[in-house]
């Protein structure tokens, strides 16, 4: 199968000289269309930096990324962001508190250049409906009028409205209650089902990675230390760090 995204020896260093910090060190992996890959690691493992590199919010110090075989450096940013979108950790911070949901969505649609009002409206409605929200009730709302779960749904709606090929979900559930996490993860599952979108799911919670993804990359100090299908990584982990991570997860049953 042809890869959607190929990441080749990607590195990013912050600062220089003695205080240089290599947040991401030579990360390589392939992502197939429609695949969900989880990047698991604790804070400081470089997983969020990797997310920002893939989103091109940050440029790599070294390495290369290919989107459908094309070097991403050759793709203009606005075009790239039509194919690659994001959902972030804190659904409150991701909103500009001064603007309504409608404005948030309309701004995202400007990526497609001028669209007829009718089409803009249709796209916004469709996206909100597909995450289980009622457009008429939500569009005029401001972030403080929405619950945490609703806010994260709106952010997912914003992303899928743009019909990207790849969605980078950077800890999309860690600011949410446990009772809401499954709901948001199910939403991501359904999005993949319906639109065939690939998802890179960044998380510190191996349980969530296990539930949602097809493959897992375990990151430790900027490097991918283990990679493989979910069952293999969780049930027969090889690397000592992965083993420790799994043994430190509290047992729930038994």
């Amino acid at each position, binding site marked *: 199968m042809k890869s959607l995204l190929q990441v080749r020896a990607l590195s990013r260093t912050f600062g220089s000289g003695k205080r240089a910090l290599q947040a991401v060190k030579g990360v390589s992996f392939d992502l197939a269309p429609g695949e969900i890959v989880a990047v698991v690691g604790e804070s400081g493992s470089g997983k969020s930096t990797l997310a*920002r590199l893939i*989103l091109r*919010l940050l440029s790599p110090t070294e390495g290369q990324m290919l989107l459908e075989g094309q070097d991403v450096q050759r793709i203009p*940013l*606005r075009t790239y*962001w039509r194919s690659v*979108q*994001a959902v*972030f*950790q*804190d659904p409150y*911070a*991701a*909103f*500009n508190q*001064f*603007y309504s949901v409608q404005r*948030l969505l309309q*701004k*995202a649609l*400007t*990526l497609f250049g001028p669209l007829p009002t009718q089409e803009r409206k249709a796209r916004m409605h469709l996206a909100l409906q597909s995450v289980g929200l009622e457009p008429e009730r939500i569009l005029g709302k401001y972030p403080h009028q929405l619950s945490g779960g609703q806010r994260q749904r709106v*952010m997912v709606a*914003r992303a899928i409205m743009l019909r990207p090929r790849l969605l980078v979900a950077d800890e999309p559930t860690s600011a949410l209650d446990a009772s809401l996490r499954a709901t948001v993860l199910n939403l991501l599952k359904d999005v993949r089902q319906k639109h065939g979108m690939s998802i890179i799911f960044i998380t510190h919670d191996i349980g969530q990675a296990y539930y949602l993804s097809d493959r897992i990359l375990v990151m430790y100090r900027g490097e991918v230390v283990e990679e493989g299908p979910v069952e293999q990584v969780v049930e027969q982990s090889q690397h000592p760090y992965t083993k420790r991570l799994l043994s430190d997860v509290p047992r729930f049953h038994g």
Partner: protein
Amino acid sequence: MNSLLAQLLSKGRFRVSVAVLLLVVAFAVLGPMLDTRNPLFAVGGRYDPPSANAILGTDVIGNDVFLQLMHGLGTSLKIGLIAGLVATAIGVFIGTLAGFLGGVVDELLMGFTNVVITIPTIVILILLSVALESRTLVSLALIIGVTSWPWTARAVRAQTASLRVREHVDIARLSGASVFSIILWEILPYMFSYIFMAFVLQLASAILSEAALSLLGLGPDNTISLGKMLQLAIQGEAIRTGAYWAFLPPTLLLTAISFSLLLLQSSLDEVFNPRLRRA
């Protein structure tokens, strides 16, 4: 929004400062409308004490001090407003660009800012007064404004740098927004209260700068201002001759204005900046 206003109104400091400022502005705006005499026209002799003819007496050249106070206050406020707006605008422009773009741009702009901080306003004024035929109210205000923005720029830069990493800024970038659009729509709204407070401080300092410069003889030509009244009083030896009415009213007015502006700023700060809020 209403709750913010209610919080402000519940603060004594806010009410006092706003009341004083409203009185001051009313005096400067309504005064000259009610009394249309020319303030630069002598009405009596040298240092006539307060009387029915001139309720605050006359100055060294026989002008009515009360009339001069009304007009001089207007000039001082105008200079303060123009200089404050100019300084805030430049400061916000440079501060947001440096804070948002970071890197080389940040270093260049902040280097430039630090250079401007070290240039005393007076040097520029002396040079300009040699170069210019006459100093008008507007040119003086511009000079004050153009030399006093660096502090605002630094503060705004720090705020911008901390706002820049917020997730909604990333979301705006991912929606294809340009740098200027992000600064305008994602950064500035979050700093609005902060910028307004910076403007209040700039206003206070510009009014005092005008007074200081005028006192040194570098004030605006062909008009009267609070600073120029003080300059005349000092040159005319009002203190030695005991003509307190010539220097006390402008001094008190300047004190009242800057004190109430600072008071206003601190009460705004307490409401807008939750960390300072007392439990």
